């Protein structure tokens, strides 16, 4: 992709939005999930996405809420 910003923004959304992430990780919903945020699910995009899926999965487990102060 020439401009990676939309792709990065999509991964960033996936990192913080568990529902969107789940759709991206489901091969049957992947294309729809990309289309829903205005990214055309071309073969190139899907390949690039699938290269980042494992990293996304690992990092999402390290992303979470701070323990609240009461």
């Amino acid at each position, binding site marked *: 992709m020439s401009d990676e910003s939309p792709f*990065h923004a999509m991964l960033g959304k996936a990192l913080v939005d568990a529902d969107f992430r789940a759709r991206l990780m489901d091969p049957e919903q992947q294309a729809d999930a990309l289309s829903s945020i205005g990214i055309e699910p071309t073969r190139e995009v899907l390949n690039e996405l699938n290269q980042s899926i494992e990293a996304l999965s690992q990092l999402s487990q390290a*992303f979470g809420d701070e323990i609240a102060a009461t």
Partner: protein
Amino acid sequence: MWADEQTSSRDRHWRDLERLLGELPPRLLRQLKLVEYDLALRCSSSGRFRDIFTGVDQFPLLSVGDWLLADWAMTAGPDRERAERHLFIAAALMAARGHTIGGIRDTQSFYDDGHVTLVEYLTGRAATELARLVPSDSPFPETWSRPWLEELEQDLEDREAVGWPGRGDDPEMLRHGLWSPTARILAAAAATLTGHENARPDVDEMLAGLAMSFQIRDDLSTLQLDLQRGRPSYAIAVVARAAGIALRPWPAPAVVLGALVATRSAETLVTEQLELVRVSRRAAERLHLESFAAYANDVEARVDRRLASLRGTGGGRRHSSPATPTRPLIVAAEPTSATALAMAKGFLLADPSFRESWESHREGMFGSPFVASRFPAGLVLEILGSHGHDVSAEVDEFLAFAEANGFRYYDHRASRTDTDTVGVYLRLARHAGDPDRWLAAAGTVLACLARDVEAGGSVPVWIGECEGIDAEPRPVVALGEGCGTVAAHLLLGLVDAGPDTYGETIRIGATALLDRIAGVGLRANVNYPHLYALGVFARLVGRLDGTRLGSDPAIPTREATAILEVALDEARRVRRPTAQEAALLVIACQEMGRPGDIDPRWAGVVLRHQRFDGSWLGEPFAAAPNRGRAVTWYSSTILTSALCYDALERLRAGA
């Protein structure tokens, strides 16, 4: 072993620190108390102040002195105890100082430049503790001041880097641990006391590496928050560089978070963190600093596990210390303004009567024990309606009451019918369930008003006798006559209700008002804060522009606008606006069509003063009678909160 020493040291010295801080005068103590809480939340696992910098998850700032004196074999006895105590207290004070300075610089924190006094105290007192350690002829003062000066210089460099193309993008510019200078100052003192000056360069490097390791962890932890706040950090610069993202203009947070995934920079950063701890541990071993070596060994195991977990390889280096870190690597953060807006909405919608905002009088006005005006609640409803909240039920109730009360300002028969009440009534009608029904109900009072406008040549504040609205024959002095803001309020309502239907009243009223503004500027306002009046006047000019009256050569729109432009330029120079003033400045800039003139610091002021229930403290808004013939400022938590909410919503919409 190191952990036991750490706890034992804390137990020995904590009471002395408490005693010292307990002697602070009340205002300083009040500031310090919150710093204590914040520091505890930031630098301890328990959230208790006495646990700061304790345990394997914290940089051992308070232990630097004790550990070095022990590892450098200072003879046990009163001198060593004294030295340990001074170093411990100096470390705690410098930590509080560093945290406070960071808070002052963060425009979205709850700290402001009022905390400079506390920084001054903490700096002076820490220096005193250090000065008491060594003989006055020792070179130590010059030695320890060097890291301090480096820290100050670094800070200035960071600030400049934010504004300079190219520099803030360089990770190396941001590669320094927050606690490193303080740790090195403490080490310098310990080295002087034990004759280990020659070891200082190596010890400094060891401490700086360890501090940077914790900085990387903290940078990752606050990555999303820093991105939202536009706050550069080493971690952000590393991710941006790996992905080829420029940091100027500041990128969307999601783009950098996505780049973190795509470039696997989190792994890179945790690997660097691990390497820094490893190098520090080896240095400590080489320098025979057993406490540091043992501590770094446990930290290394911790980071190793984190890295393994990130790589999905499990395990990591086997070690006896507590295993899985409980804190997420990256902490999820809501944008401050989104949280503030949600809080404000929650507060404003909590009481649909907005009763606290009513101008309530218990001083015996009209000989009655209680008299109230609901007018301010109308302003609150107008703000909520303008931002898309369905307040139709509340508006219906407000309008029904205004109509039943004969459009009087106060809910007493001796109160006169009031233009401001009519104005807010008309402006609210469009948010009501059946706007036409309410506009029809105002027919009589609008006819009386048109009569008075035509007779007087301008919009009055108080409306004369009106058929169908009975009045109690009681002499009163009606304050506030001649207020241009009241006139503008009404004209805005008439434009809302029907610029053609009420064209003649609008023409006469607008001509008189704008002519007055062109002549005396914001002095045309009588009853309200000038900044509020500025926004209302600008809004009126904007609305008139959208009607056929906008091109009426008899209405001095251009002259009034020129005066308002100058007034806004002057208002923007205010040095320390309150929350309400900052909100009104934002609103005025927007109404004047000058959103580019909104100072980003104003949002910070508004955010900083929001309380945890979502409200802001009430600030003076209108002059009102009190105890007979005295006049004092009306203020309301709900109304000030609505104005602050309005400003934040406008900023969000304009972002």
